[in-house]
């Protein structure tokens, strides 16, 4: 299915972190603002509550023949349990972004392009732990090119309550800046 130009991302964490929201916003960004095709799937039901949960997005230029994630090329992981449970599905040479406030990546992570983002810590500094997922989205939008930074920012704008718009945009920009810094560091080395 490579020829379809499938690009897959998985968001993993625990219930309440906005894992499903992050995936949904990514899908909306691709469809509504980048004019691509996208499918969004999630775990729900008892297994999504209290233990490791995930959402998946497939982005493509054309029709998507298989809506579920198969070997995602990038994973955004926000809990240790999700890290242990889902990492084996990440495709070879894939990209792994972890919330380093919560996740301590082990040996297996060395096989991948690893980015550590202290998202929860930064979100706490903003006064709202809940926007850690948006910091991760901002970061991902820079290092992953299947969805554009602008599209993701627009989708965040459209997808969050008006009352918290400023906070979420601030969080998104923190993520973007951290990613730009991280990329600069990589090129300097």
């Amino acid at each position: 299915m490579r020829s379809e130009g499938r690009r897959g991302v998985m968001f993993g964490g625990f219930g309440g972190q906005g894992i499903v929201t992050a995936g949904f916003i990514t899908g909306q960004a691709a469809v509504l603002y980048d004019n691509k095709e996208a499918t969004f799937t999630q775990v729900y039901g008892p297994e999504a509550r209290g233990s490791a949960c995930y959402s998946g997005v497939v982005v493509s230029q054309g029709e998507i023949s298989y809506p579920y994630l198969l070997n995602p090329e990038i994973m955004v992981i926000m809990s240790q349990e999700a890290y242990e449970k889902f990492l084996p599905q990440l495709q070879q040479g894939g990209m792994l972004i972890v919330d380093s406030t919560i996740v301590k990546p082990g040996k297996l992570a060395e096989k991948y392009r690893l980015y550590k983002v202290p998202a929860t810590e930064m979100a706490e500094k903003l006064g709202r732990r809940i926007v850690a997922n948006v910091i991760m989205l901002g970061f991902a939008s820079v290092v992953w090119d299947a969805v554009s930074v602008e599209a993701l920012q627009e989708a965040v704008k459209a997808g969050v309550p008006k009352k918290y718009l400023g906070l979420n945009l601030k969080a998104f920009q923190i993520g973007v800046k951290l990613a730009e810094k991280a990329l600069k560091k990589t090129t300097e080395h």
Partner: protein
Amino acid sequence: MAAILGASWAGAKSMTATSGPGLSLMMENFGLGVMMEVPTVVVDIQRGGPSTGLPTLTAQGDVMQARWGSHGHYEIIALAPDSPQEAFDLTIRCFNLAEKYRVPVILLASETVGLSAGKVVVPPEDEIKLIDRKKPTVPPGEYLPYRPDEDLIPPMASAGEGYAICATGLTHDEKGYPETNAETQEKLVRRLNDKIRVHLEEIVDVEEEHLEDAEIAVVSYGQVSRPAKRAVKMARDEGIKAGSIKLITVWPFAEHVIRKWAKQVEWFIVPELNYGQIYLEVRREACGDSKVVPIPRMGGRLITPQEIYQEIKKVSKN
């Protein structure tokens, strides 16, 4: 189910949505809807059964339940969407068919379609074609609620419009009064079936691809259609003469389509997320003219294009 039947009699377009276990429970009143000829729509988001089975994962186990779930002999209409876009488009078509033929129509969807998100383009309202049920053209004194027109479908007055209405699950005459004898049963049940059967080609909708020179045809429906069509493309890229028949209408079955292609293709391949339900229909209509191979999966996971492609390849070497 009883509520949507009542709402429809009151003149509204009505629907309900459920999954397999709910459909099981609704089947009693579903039959009432068939007998009273009530236009309404039931959405079934199929998961893995039997019983509560796999409540969060995909399947296609309810195909025969949609067809025969209620007792008695009747015809039904069921459409199977392959994506959120088709769920939108086909729900509209379900309503149109229900209104036109005065029958409960099932949108036979699945977890894959009902609980995922994807791009949906909503057309401008004036581009959406809507059909409303036929209304009586005679004065109230002359109206018989179950006297059919030539198309076998009786015009339907809503409750409160001034027409005398009597509707019952019992075998009834044209007035709608119970008349429980063999003669009335013969006439009524024959018509309930025939009003769908005689319009079969008008109701049935299929999407055919790459069939002109096909030796192998993959017959699919619902969420399996997308991987199936992809598999056919993969086979074509390898020079295998494969084509695709996607059943948008699952019931009534596209028997004339299968019969037509059975004269040309050597093989039908039927991938589905059950132990072979539409497979049996295809085999029946192929009548030995072509060989029919199922790819049965019990559900829980959508079959991949690769898996279907492997079967096409295997068959092409025989």
